[in-house]
């Protein structure tokens, strides 16, 4: 084999913790950068604020937002953290309130300001993600590299940015990664991460990603031989106590089991399906991975902490469409740091005017959002609101054979009705989900499954195989339709209460 590899320039191997990429350059050593390079990148971030503002000025269409609102409404009315009683007799699996804190906030906002308020909250959350992403990248790079990494990272995160509590996870993972990257520099434990993990555990089921990031960095530091035994113990303790804190929320220790509950039912949930490189967000994220690795191979020797974080990010990005967002968030500061290495100018520290300008831009966008959302987001999107009056007239406890996408909306808007399925997939057993899938696909035995539900009414997508089969083969009547959904009635069956044996 020919000797076609070369030693890295500079003789001795460098690490990213030397002055060029570690501590901020002191004022005396700060290099003057042109106004254009300082201003334009910040302008790009402001443009992103405007972009997410526009994204939020739409009717709310995520199918899960409705049952989250009902969760929050009911929790505020009694503060019972137990099972969601009386919603539907079909959801028989153990349901743990893993997202109660943002659900309560969302419910309060909705009570005070209606759906425009919820849309406003969504837009502000997106701006917070952009801002935190930029500041995290900025801690690793100058304005230009950080802005580019922010834009690319946001695209990578975009597939899962919907008005749901998981936005909290996406913000907090950025905060955690930044905190641990700082720890990787100064080796000091950030004990406040324990409290942050408690808040995270009250907000979303991905709380365990925080301790996982911590463990990854700590193991990396051990492999880099940068820790004394006492230091390693302290850093491991931060992650372990974070997990302990997660068991001390009002939900109780059962929260610690919830990360493992998704596995059995993931096959039924589209967003837990593997990502495709043909979609923009995964493609962008995988491209970032490739660029980071490419730069690492041509640059300085990379510490194990960075390698570990990259592996963690890749693992999340490859796991499912939903977790591509996590992978994009974790790799963003690494990408920013790699980009900074390509630039001739040293990283300038974060300046007060920079932060102030972003804060002002964010504030202005929030005002615009508040004013405009009243007209753009006051009615739900993607649900058949034209059928509301007919559904309101159905007797209480009427079972509705529904499409998955409208289950949450039925729970919130028509709480007296009983949908056969909704977006709380973990609340249903695997056999039930399998039967529902068979009925929707109209495979052999579908009639028996429909009969078992006791449904006399159906709210299904117009033209779906089940809607077609109900009308053509079982003689169900089409009563009305709206926004691509059709309301069907079985004229031959007497009313049946599935809550009775």
């Amino acid at each position, binding site marked *: 084999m020919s000797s076609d590899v070369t030693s890295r320039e500079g003789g001795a191997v460098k690490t990213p913790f030397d002055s060029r990429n570690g501590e901020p350059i002191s004022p005396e050593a700060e290099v003057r950068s042109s106004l254009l390079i300082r201003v334009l990148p910040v302008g790009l971030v402001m443009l992103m604020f405007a972009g997410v503002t526009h994204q939020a000025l739409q009717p709310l269409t995520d199918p899960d937002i409705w049952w989250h609102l009902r969760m929050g409404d009911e929790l505020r009315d009694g503060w019972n953290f137990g099972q969601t009683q009386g919603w539907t007799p079909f959801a028989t699996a153990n349901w743990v309130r893993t997202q109660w804190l943002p659900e309560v906030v969302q419910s309060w906002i909705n009570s005070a300001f209606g759906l425009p308020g919820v849309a406003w909250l969504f837009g502000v959350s997106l701006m917070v993600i952009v801002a935190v992403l930029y500041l995290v990248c900025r801690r690793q790079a100058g304005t230009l590299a950080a802005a580019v990494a922010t834009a690319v990272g946001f695209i990578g995160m975009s597939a899962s940015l919907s008005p749901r509590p998981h936005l909290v996870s996406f913000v907090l993972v950025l905060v955690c990664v930044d905190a641990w990257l700082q720890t990787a520099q100064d080796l000091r434990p950030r004990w406040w991460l324990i409290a942050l993990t408690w808040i995270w555990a009250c907000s979303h089921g991905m709380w365990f990603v925080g301790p996982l990031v911590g463990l990854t960095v700590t193991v990396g530091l051990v492999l880099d031989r940068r820790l004394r035994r006492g230091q390693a113990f302290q850093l491991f303790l931060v992650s372990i106590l974070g997990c302990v804190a997660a068991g001390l929320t009002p939900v109780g220790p059962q929260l610690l089991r919830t990360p493992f509950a998704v596995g059995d039912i993931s096959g039924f949930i589209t967003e837990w399906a593997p990502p*495709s*490189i043909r979609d923009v967000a995964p493609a962008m994220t*995988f491209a970032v991975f490739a660029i980071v690795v490419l730069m*690492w*191979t041509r640059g300085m*020797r990379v510490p194990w902490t960075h390698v570990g974080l990259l592996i963690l990010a890749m693992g999340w990005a490859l796991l499912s469409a939903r977790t591509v967002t996590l992978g994009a968030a974790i790799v963003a500061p690494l990408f920013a740091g790699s980009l900074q290495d390509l630039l001739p100018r040293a990283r300038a520290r974060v300046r007060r005017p920079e932060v102030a300008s972003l804060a002002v831009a964010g504030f202005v966008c929030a005002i615009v959002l508040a004013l405009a959302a009243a007209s753009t987001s006051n009615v739900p999107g993607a649900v058949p609101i034209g059928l509301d009056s007919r559904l309101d007239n159905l007797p209480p406890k009427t079972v509705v054979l529904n499409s998955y996408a409208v289950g949450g909306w039925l729970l919130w808007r028509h709480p007296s009705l009983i949908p056969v399925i909704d977006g709380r997939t973990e609340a249903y057993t695997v056999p039930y989900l399998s039967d529902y899938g068979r009925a929707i*696909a109209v*495979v052999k035995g579908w009639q028996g499954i429909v009969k078992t539900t006791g449904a006399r009414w159906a709210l299904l997508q117009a033209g779906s195989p089940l809607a*077609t*089969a109900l009308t053509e083969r079982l003689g169900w009547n089409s009563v009305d339709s709206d926004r691509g959904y059709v309301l069907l009635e079985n004229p031959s069956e007497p009313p049946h209460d599935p809550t009775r044996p």
Partner: protein
Amino acid sequence: MLGYLLLIALGAVGLMLGIRPVGEQSAWLHLSIGRQLIGGGGFGRVDPWVPWATQPYIPTEWLPDVAAYKLYELFGLSGIAWLRAAGVLLLLAVTIWSARRLADTVPSLIAAGAALVGAGHALTARPQLLGFVLLSLAVVAWWQMASDLRPRWWLVPLTWVWASSHGLWVVGIGFGVVTIAGLALDRRLTWVSARRLLAVPALSLVAAALTPIGPALLLTPLTVGRDVRDFVGEWQASSAHDLATFVTLCMLALVALSWARSRRVPPWWQIAHLVVAFVATLAMERTVAVGAVVAAPLLAQTMQSWRGTPYVALPRRDAMAWLAMGVSALLIAVPLAATFAPRPTDVPTGLQSALSNLPAGTVVMEDTNMSAWVGWVAPQLRPVKDSRSEIFSRQQHLGYARLVAAAPGWDRILDRSGATRALVLTDSPLAAALHEREGWATVGTDDGYSLMGRP
């Protein structure tokens, strides 16, 4: 000793993967094509099997199709199973060779074994397997050329054979161009050496145009499947949940992260190989094996670097012993194939006589997974659509999908097709719809399939 044990284990795994009853749907399709070509028939403007197909079928894999059918005539399905085993063993042998040129025995065998797992989806009785054997040969050739900058002209006739066997030939040419580009970035090429190296892929392209298919073959990579990729499972993006994809990604990750941690800077041409492998692995299920084959020598070299010592070339005596073991494996495969793979699997053989007895020209609505087998055992029938996806329009694919799902309008699509029989999964929406709505009767069932007839 460990090396020989690993080699025997890999060979045994290769034999196990190869010697199994024939059940791949593509196997029946390619046997049918071989029968058609040898019988003097062809594929003209009007398809001989599905007259309503909108595109003519181009038998781009004619060489292995003809060879496989000849082997079938002599030895039956056992011969096809043996051919599959031979392909797997040959792929393994070439991959081992590509790795052993860069690393000692143990790391090279580990890399080759990982590549075999990564190429798992390609280890089937179809011309694709030959395509991957030839790809692994091309990878070896380009590593040699990157090492000494001397062109390997034997790639040109190899590409002719490749272009007569499978569409992967275009990947071989692209791989060469990427390697040359990497060498240029490494500043190792002069104008003279660059021209000489570029002549290899250029002449390979010319060779591909000189097959009996003609220059039209050069356009098939651009046109085949362009409109219908969404309807073919193996053309969908791959998933890390799949073992082959996961193992291949692990191979690439080990190489990349080892480079990141190393004091040595890898050359651009090897980085280019890594990028090609990464993209191929994620692009679609069908190309994961490309990633695995390309990754094998990279991983072997990386693992050797962990040892900290230069590799020791395989002694001639050991090389002859390995070759003898390979030939022995091929010979052992003969009685094994005759014993374990004389009959097909995963097909409703219980319905074969009913299908064979149907009048010539009967239109049958066939499940996609069975159309090739039906075409093989009952060539007198006319399927609504068969597995040669590229000869049907997007409209036909959409109509077929609606029919299979019993979606609105399915009955009109069925009526327009003229189908009087259906071979469908017993537990399928269409089977339920035919029975409940149209009153079709079940003529027979076997292996999860039902043959139904119009009343």
